C-alpha cells in the first residue's frame, strides 16, 4: 500500500512536471494567463505529491515494511527511531527522494512569491525549475527507485550505514546540504527565465536574491557541519581533507559568495550583469557536478554512493544543463552589457572586483585539482593523487588575500574616496593589524602565511566591528536612548549591510580558528600500559583500563582514560573507542574522545591495543581554538539571517537599463525602465 502510494505520487509528479513545462512555454507563446495559472498549479501539486511520497517512505521505514526495496536496504528493527527517520537519506535512492522533495518545495515557494510580477520571465523560470525537478523524478522512477518490490519479504534488514549512527550531526548535515545545494536551482531558474524571455534587467535578481542568500546560508552550515562531523568521528583530528566530495560542496559556495558580493555592484551601477548571471549559472552547474561526482563513481572518495547506470543519467543531465547554459549565456551576453563606470579606483566596487577575482581563482584551483586525476589519466594513462598538500599550498595565499579584502571592503564606501582619505580610514584598522601581528609573534607564530593570516584577521575584525560601533554611536547622538536601542535601530535601518558585517566577523573567527588549530597543533603517538600516564602540554592523561562491549551490530572496544591538568587536578574521564561492525570486515571505525573548550581541544584517538588489555596505543592531539570554527559559523549564519529577514531597508539607487520586458498579454517592445 505504502509502496503504491510512494511510487504513484512520484510517477504523477513526473507527468505533471512535463505538463507544467509545456503549459508554461505555451502560455508565453499564446499569452494565456490561464494556462500560466495551470503551470503554477502543477508546481504546487508536485510539492504535495513529493511530500506524500517522502512521508510514505518515512512511514515505511518506521513500520519496518521490508517489502519495499529501500527499507530492506537500510532498515532494521534494532535501529532506534530517530536513526530510522534519518536513514531516509542514508543511501542513494532515499537521498534522491529527499532531494526531489526539497526541490519541489523550493520551486513551489519561489513561484508562489513571484507569481504577481514575473510575466514571461516567471513562465520560463517555472519551466526550467520543473525541468530540473523532472530529471530527479525520472531518476526516482528509473535507476534510483527506492520503491522496488522485495519478495519474499525478509524479516529484518541490515540497518543504515554505521557511520550514520555514530554522531548526531549525521542527522543534520545531509538535510542542510540539500537545502543549500537544491536552493541554487531557484536563482538558476530565474536567470534562465530572464535569458529565454529577453527580460534582461535586474528583475531576475530581485526575484531570486533572498533564495540565493538562504541557500548560501544552508550550504555554509552544511559544509561546517560536515567538517565538525569529520573532526568528531573520523579520528584523525582534522576537519578538512580536500576530499573530492568536500570540494564538490565547497565549489558552489565559492561562486555563490562571489555572486552575493558582485550583485551589489549590479544593483548600484548596473554593471557586471552578464558576469552575475554566469556566476549564478555556474553555481547551479557546480551543484550538479557535485552530485554527479558523488554518485557516478567517477572519482573515489569517502562519500561515494554506489556506482552504476545512474552515473550515465547524471552525466547526461550535466551535459544538457552545461551546454544549454553556455548557448544561452553566450548568445545573450551582448544584450546584457550595461554602462560600465567606476568613480574611483579606491572604492568598494574595486574591492568587490578583486573579491570576485580571488573567489573565481579559488574555484578554478579547487576544480582543477579535483578533476586533475581524471585529466591525467586520460592524458597519460597513469593514476595520480591530488591531495591536501597541493590544495593547502595553492589556496592558503588566496584565503589570506580574501581576509585582507574583508578588512578593506567595509572601510571603503561606494563610489570611493580620494587617495588622501585612505590614511585616516585605515589608521585604526592598521593598528588592529599591528596588534594582531604582535600577539601572533608572541604566541610563537613564525611562518609568513600564518603571520599574515593573523594580521589580516585582526585588521578585518577591527574594520567590521568599527562599522557597528561608529554607526551606533552616531545614532545615539542623533536619536538619543540607550546603546542597545541604538544598535537595534542601526541594524534595522539597513539589515543587509550590518548582517553582512556580522557574517564577516564570523568568517574572521573561523579563519582564526583554522589558522591557530593548524599552526599550533601538537600531536603525539604513545603506547601506555595500564596505570601509566603521559604528560603532554598542559595535560596528564592516564590509561586506566581497556573494556569491550557487545552491541547488536557491533563490538566496541574502548579505553578508559582520566585526564588531569599539569598540576594534578582531575578534569574528567575520556573514552576513545574502536567500533567493529560485522558488515564492514576488518577495518574498525574510530570514535575519538574530544574534550572541547574555548581555548583548545584535547583530542584522543585509540589506535591499537593488545588483546588482553595490557596496553593501548593512543594518538593524543592538542588543537587550539578549534571551537572558534563552530562558533564563527554560528555568527555567520546569524549575520545571514539578519540580512535575510530584515526586509529591504534603504533601497539602492535605481538603474537605467534598456530592456524589453515581455509581459504575458503584451507585445515585446524596447522600454526604459527605472
Amino acid at each position, binding site marked *: 500500500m505504502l509502496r503504491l502510494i510512494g511510487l504513484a505520487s512520484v510517477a504523477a509528479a513526473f507527468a505533471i512536471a512535463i505538463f507544467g513545462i509545456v503549459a508554461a512555454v505555451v502560455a508565453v507563446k499564446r499569452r494565456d494567463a490561464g494556462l500560466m495559472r495551470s503551470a503554477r498549479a502543477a508546481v504546487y501539486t508536485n510539492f504535495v505529491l513529493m511530500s506524500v511520497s517522502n512521508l510514505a517512505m518515512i512511514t515505511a521505514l518506521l513500520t519496518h515494511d521490508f517489502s519495499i526495496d529501500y527499507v530492506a536496504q537500510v532498515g532494521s528493527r534494532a535501529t532506534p527511531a530517530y536513526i530510522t527517520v534519518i536513514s531516509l537519506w542514508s543511501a542513494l535512492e532515499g537521498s534522491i527522494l529527499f532531494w526531489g522533495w526539497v526541490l519541489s518545495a523550493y520551486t513551489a515557494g519561489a513561484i508562489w512569491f513571484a507569481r504577481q510580477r514575473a510575466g514571461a520571465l516567471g513562465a520560463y523560470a517555472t519551466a526550467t525549475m520543473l525541468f530540473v525537478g523532472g530529471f530527479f523524478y525520472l531518476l526516482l522512477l528509473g535507476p534510483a527507485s527506492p520503491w522496488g518490490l522485495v519478495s519474499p519479504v525478509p524479516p529484518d534488514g541490515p540497518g543504515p550505514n554505521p557511520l550514520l549512527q555514530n554522531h548526531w550531526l549525521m542527522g543534520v548535515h545531509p538535510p542542510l546540504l540539500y537545502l543549500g545545494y537544491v536552493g541554487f536551482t531557484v536563482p538558476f531558474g530565474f536567470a534562465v527565465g530572464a535569458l529565454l524571455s529577453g527580460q534582461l534587467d535586474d528583475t531576475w535578481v530581485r526575484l531570486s536574491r533572498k533564495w540565493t542568500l538562504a541557500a548560501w546560508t544552508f550550504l555554509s552550515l552544511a559544509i561546517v557541519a560536515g567538517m565538525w562531523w569529520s573532526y568528531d568521528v573520523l579520528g584523525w583530528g582534522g576537519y578538512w581533507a580536500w576530499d573530492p566530495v568536500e570540494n564538490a560542496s565547497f565549489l558552489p559556495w565559492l561562486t555563490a559568495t562571489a555572486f552575493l558580493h558582485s550583485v551589489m555592484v549590479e544593483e548600484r551601477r548596473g554593471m557586471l550583469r552578464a558576469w552575475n548571471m554566469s556566476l549564478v549559472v555556474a553555481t547551479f552547474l557546480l551543484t550538479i557536478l557535485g552530485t554527479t561526482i558523488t554518485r*557516478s563513481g567517477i*572519482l573515489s572518495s569517502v562519500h561515494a554512493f554506489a556506482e552504476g547506470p545512474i*552515473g550515465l543519467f547524471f*552525466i547526461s543531465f550535466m551535459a544538457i544543463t552545461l*551546454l544549454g547554459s553556455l548557448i544561452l549565456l*553566450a*548568445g*545573450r551576453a551582448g544584450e546584457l552589457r550595461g554602462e560600465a563606470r567606476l568613480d574611483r579606483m579606491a572604492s568598494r566596487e574595486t574591492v568587490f572586483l578583486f573579491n570576485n577575482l580571488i573567489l573565481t581563482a579559488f574555484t578554478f584551483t579547487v576544480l582543477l585539482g579535483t578533476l586533475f586525476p*581524471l585529466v591525467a589519466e586520460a592524458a597519460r594513462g597513469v593514476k595520480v593523487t591530488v591531495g591536501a598538500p597541493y590544495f593547502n599550498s595553492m589556496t592558503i595565499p588566496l584565503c589570506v588575500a580574501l581576509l585582507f579584502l574583508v578588512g578593506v571592503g567595509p572601510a571603503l564606501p561606494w563610489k570611493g574616496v580620494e587617495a588622501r582619505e585612505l590614511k585616516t580610514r585605515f589608521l585604526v584598522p592598521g593598528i588592529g593589524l599591528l596588534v594582531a601581528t604582535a600577539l601572533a609573534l608572541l604566541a610563537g607564530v613564525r611562518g609568513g602565511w600564518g603571520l599574515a593570516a593573523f594580521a589580516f584577521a585582526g585588521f578585518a575584525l577591527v574594520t567590521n566591528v568599527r562599522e557597528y560601533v561608529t554607526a551606533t554611536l552616531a545614532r545615539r547622538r542623533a536619536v538619543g536612548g540607550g546603546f542597545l536601542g541604538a544598535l537595534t535601530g542601526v541594524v534595522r535601518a539597513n539589515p543587509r549591510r550590518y548582517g553582512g558585517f556580522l557574517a564577516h566577523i564570523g568568517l574572521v573567527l573561523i579563519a582564526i580558528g583554522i589558522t591557530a588549530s593548524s599552526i599550533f597543533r601538537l600531536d603525539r603517538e604513545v603506547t601506555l600500559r595500564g596505570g601509566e600516564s603521559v604528560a603532554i602540554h598542559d595535560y596528564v592523561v592516564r590509561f586506566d583500563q581497556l573494556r569491550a562491549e557487545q552491541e547488536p551490530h557491533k563490538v566496541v572496544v574502548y579505553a578508559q582514560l582520566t585526564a588531569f591538568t599539569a598540576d594534578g587536578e582531575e578534569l574528567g574521564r575520556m573514552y576513545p573507542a574502536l567500533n567493529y561492525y560485522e558488515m564492514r*570486515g576488518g577495518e574498525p571505525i574510530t570514535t575519538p574522545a574530544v574534550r572541547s573548550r574555548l581555548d583548545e581541544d584535547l583530542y584522543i584517538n585509540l589506535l591499537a591495543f593488545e588483546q588482553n588489555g595490557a596496553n593501548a596505543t593512543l594518538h593524543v592531539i592538542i588543537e587550539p581554538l578549534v571551537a572558534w570554527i563552530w562558533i564563527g559559523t554560528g555568527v555567520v549564519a546569524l549575520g545571514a539571517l539578519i540580512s535575510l529577514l530584515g526586509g529591504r531597508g534603504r533601497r539602492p539607487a535605481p538603474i537605467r537599463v534598456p530592456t524589453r520586458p515581455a509581459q504575458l498579454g503584451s507585445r515585446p517592445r524596447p522600454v526604459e525602465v527605472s
Partner: protein
Amino acid sequence: MNWKRSLVAFAAGLPFVALLAFGMTRDPNQIPTSMPGQDAPTFTLPVLNAADTVSLARHAGEVVVLNFWASWCVPCRIEHPVLLQAASRYADSDVHFYGVVYQDTEDNAQRWLNQLGQGYPSLLDPGSRTAVDYALTGVPETYIIDRQGKVVFHRAQPITDLAEFIQLIEAARAGTLGPGGASS
C-alpha cells in the same frame, strides 16, 4: 541572440563533457599494480605455529604461489577451497603454495585454518613489511612468481575460477606467462 557566440561556447563545453564521460569508463578505486614484471621481493618469514622459517630464495628455479589472507576477510573464505584444490594438485611438484597472514593474530589465523582446512604452510608477516614490499592494498591478493624470480601474476581479487588458475600456473611453469598475465 548571437548564435555564433553560442556555437563557440557550446564547442568549449564539449571537452568537459567528454572528460566526464571518460571518467565513467574507468574504476577510480582500482589501484593499478606495477608488480608484474618486477623481481619478486625477497623475504624470510616465520611459519605459523611452527619453529621454521621460509625464504623465497629456497625456491629459486621453481614456481611460487603467494596468497595474502586474513581471518577477518570474507572473500578469503570464498576463495580458500579453490586454493586448496589447486595446492593439492601441485603437491610434491615444483609449484609451491604459501599463504601470508596479513594483520591478524596467530590464534585467529590458526583457528581459521583449522576450520577451513590447511593444505600448505602459512607465513607470518610482522609489521607488514612483506605486504608493503608486494604492494598490497588489502586482502585477498594472490601472486605467481616464476622460475626467474619475477612476479608474473598479481590479482587483487579472490581466485574463484579453478580452471583459469590452473592454466595460469601452467603458463608460469612453462615460462610463457608474461607480465600481461597481470589482472585487476
